[in-house]
């Protein structure tokens, strides 16, 4: 036994490794990314980043078809992308365990919605396991593989941001199960694995029977635990909400559900019969609450606790006081001095970010920008105020095409990053060429999946486990899709970006601009950082450089005598020397790298 202080994500990686997982596939997405990053260096495991979650699900299903334990990892919205595959895997079952590790994001710390993916489990008849801390995140992995193999079903391990990103003590075995088979083999079973209607009709009753058997299994599943204490209040809770329940109601009877689909009907009836008032504490949807009500058991949940956002003990306590479950005296006093309005500090494009200049140019040309998911979304804040739409991974191009086909006169462009382009942008780009709209697509190729913390992708030439591979070439790829007008520009060169955009807009045909420049935070790029400087004599405080929205360009204490406006100053601790501001300055008051070099030499 090893005693470790692990995040939920690290614990899942340990649990997966010890379970003998052979193949693991994922697309990075907060809060799930660290799971594969932690698993990848472990021995005897194959782990990869896929272009998207659907591919990851297929890869994992294939490995499980071939008799190897496999897992697919994704954030909640990734399962929307992978849903088609999730459903067939639920229909076919597999030859070895298949676990889908899914991380929901209550409060949308880093997401566009807070969908509750337990719904998918019920939708597809897939059991759902939920840990309440890292120890259980670790222990539920082998449990998930065992259930998967015993019942011939994929199993979802559902995490939330708080479980994924909290560290708690874990006792780990530190040993890996022996391989299931020396050499994996492929067992042909077309009736089971070819989902043509005739076969699928045979499989549907099988999965309905399977979920009924799983309901029985849930009654004795050791992670469903009933603690009877004070019988005046009974609480059913799951995930991190269980911890809040324990903290706020130390005396209450609690039924912890480690399996939230299917629920243990007998256990719930037994628990309900032993307590006077039954409540459910769960984050997001009233999922358990609805399951309990379907059993004909009265229960309260979302009438007391919020459906939106994350819970914490304070929210649970206040809600309980309002509902009369706790006395007023239980309230924890909170001091709320009048702070007025504090200057906000939202996440912003970093100093030196190559995306910044592209948006400066689209603004200059007054273009409507359909954006996508990635760092560039952060440009929507002032002063850049672009993109103007952003829905989900890969949406930018299709939306821009639709806007164009609706007959709008203003020109609009699509903007997305390299990894998002590989993820779901490619079919949409093919559509622009095929159905011929005048959409210009800007692929912001910063040579890495930056938003989630610099993961490799098909453009980087490296795999998750550090193998060299062929980096995809964008130009031949988009040309073969049917694009004749293709520009490649340096994102740092505003003139190049503007000329290419103007050419595409005038041509009025399908066009692609690949705006290339490495993320400024890459280690090899950091070595080239060189802070620029403002020539105070030349600067007249016109303020144009502030419109690029770089944190390194700040107002100086020195005021220009003529204009009465503060001059610009560059924070040497932040500036990387990208020179976007220098190109914007009409008076050439920001000294470039070359000019600084000359001064040094002189």
């Amino acid at each position, binding site marked *: 036994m090893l005693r470790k202080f692990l995040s939920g994500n690290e614990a899942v990686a340990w649990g997966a490794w010890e379970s003998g997982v052979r193949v693991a596939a994922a697309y990075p997405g907060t809060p799930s990314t660290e799971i594969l990053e932690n698993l990848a260096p472990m021995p005897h495991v194959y782990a990869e980043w896929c272009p998207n979650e659907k591919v990851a699900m297929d890869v994992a299903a294939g490995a499980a078809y071939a008799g190897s334990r496999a897992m697919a990892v994704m954030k909640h919205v990734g399962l929307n992308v992978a849903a088609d595959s999730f459903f067939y895997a639920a229909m076919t079952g597999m030859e070895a365990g298949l676990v889908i590790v899914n991380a929901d994001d209550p409060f949308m710390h880093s997401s566009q919605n807070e969908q509750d993916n337990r719904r998918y489990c019920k939708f597809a008849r897939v059991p759902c396991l939920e840990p309440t801390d890292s120890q259980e995140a670790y222990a539920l992995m082998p449990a998930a593989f065992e259930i998967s193999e015993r019942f011939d079903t994929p199993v979802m391990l559902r995490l939330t941001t708080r479980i994924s990103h909290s560290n*708690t003590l874990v006792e780990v075995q530190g040993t890996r199960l022996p391989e299931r088979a020396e050499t994996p083999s492929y067992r042909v079973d077309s009736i089971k694995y070819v989902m043509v209607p005739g076969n699928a009709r045979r499989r549907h009753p099988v999965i309905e029977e399977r979920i009924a058997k799983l309901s029985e299994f849930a009654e004795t599943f050791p992670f469903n635990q009933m603690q009877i204490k004070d019988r005046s209040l009974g609480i059913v809770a799951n995930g991190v909400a269980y911890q809040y329940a324990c903290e706020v109601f130390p005396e209450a009877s609690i039924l912890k559900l480690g399996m939230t689909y299917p629920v243990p009907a007998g256990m719930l009836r037994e628990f309900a019969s032993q307590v006077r008032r039954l409540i459910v504490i769960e984050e997001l949807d009233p999922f358990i609450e609805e399951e309990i009500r379907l059993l004909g058991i009265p229960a309260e949940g979302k009438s007391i606790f919020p459906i939106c956002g994350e819970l914490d003990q*304070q929210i649970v306590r206040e809600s309980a006081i309002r509902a009369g479950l706790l006395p007023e005296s239980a309230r924890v006093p909170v001091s709320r*001095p009048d702070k007025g309005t504090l200057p906000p500090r939202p996440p912003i494009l970093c100093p030196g970010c190559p995306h910044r200049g592209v948006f400066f140019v689209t603004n200059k040309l007054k273009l409507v920008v359909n954006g996508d998911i990635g760092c560039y979304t952060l440009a929507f804040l002032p002063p850049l105020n672009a993109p103007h739409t952003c829905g989900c991974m890969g949406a930018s191009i299709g939306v821009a095409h639709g806007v164009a086909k609706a007959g709008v006169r203003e020109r609009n462009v699509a903007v997305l990053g390299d990894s998002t382009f590989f993820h779901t942008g490619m079919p949409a780009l093919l559509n622009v060429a095929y159905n011929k709209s005048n959409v210009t697509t800007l692929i912001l190729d910063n040579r890495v999946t930056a938003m989630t913390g610099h993961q490799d992708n098909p453009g980087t030439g490296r795999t998750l486990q550090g193998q060299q591979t062929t980096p995809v070439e964008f130009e031949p790829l988009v040309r073969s899709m049917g694009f004749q007008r293709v520009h490649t520009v340096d994102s740092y060169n505003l003139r190049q970006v503007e000329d290419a955009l103007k050419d595409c807009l005038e041509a009025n045909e399908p066009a692609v601009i690949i705006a290339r420049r490495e993320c400024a935070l890459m280690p090899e790029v950091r070595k080239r950082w060189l802070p620029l400087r403002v020539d105070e004599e030349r600067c007249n405080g016109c303020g144009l450089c502030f419109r690029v929205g770089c944190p390194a360009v700040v107002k100086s204490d020195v005021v220009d005598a003529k204009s009465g406006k503060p001059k610009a100053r560059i924070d040497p601790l932040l500036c990387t020397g990208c020179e976007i501001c220098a190109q914007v300055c009409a008076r050439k008051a920001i000294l470039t790298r070359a000019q600084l070099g000359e001064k040094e030499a002189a």
Partner: protein
Amino acid sequence: MSVRKVNFLLAGVGGQGTILASDVLAAVGLQKGLDVKKSEVHGMAQRGGSVTSHVRWGPKVYSPLIGLGEADVFLCFEKLETLRHVEMLRQGALVLINDYVISPLSVSSGTDQYPDDERIQSLLGSITSNYHWVPGVALAESLGNARANNVVLLGALSHFFPDVETAAWLEAVRERVPSKFVELNERAFLAGRDDMRASGAKPLV
């Protein structure tokens, strides 16, 4: 306040080293044989956004988060961020403020005003008198590297926990910094501890 059960809130700006500091706090709690949970709340802030970490020590810790009004100790790495999280503090909480400003974009571009020290002190003063300024960056700079200011703050904090040996803190720091920065960080820790000791602030317990 008993040292047995402590809620530590750490707040700062992405890239300031709050995560390392919270890892050290967690390790020290574990080393004392306590149950510990730690949670990071950083949203999309890879760089430049507000970040907080929650570390809880206790005989048995349930929630990984600290609720409003529950923070016993607040370690703040940037002055403005102190105000952003004051409602997390319980009355009389211990607050250490790094005397350091990182201007948000809206301040450096001239749209918003950065709160002055008086306003910070009067707002904090309505909740606790037990707050202390730490010259974290100045001390770290005098040792040759401003980035060690997070460890200066930990050193200052250690003064308030006389029952935790300095060696335990230093070991937790050593395990988490690159080997070439071990000596710098040890000196940063001791500088922070000595500075707080010299101020005559009263230890907890």
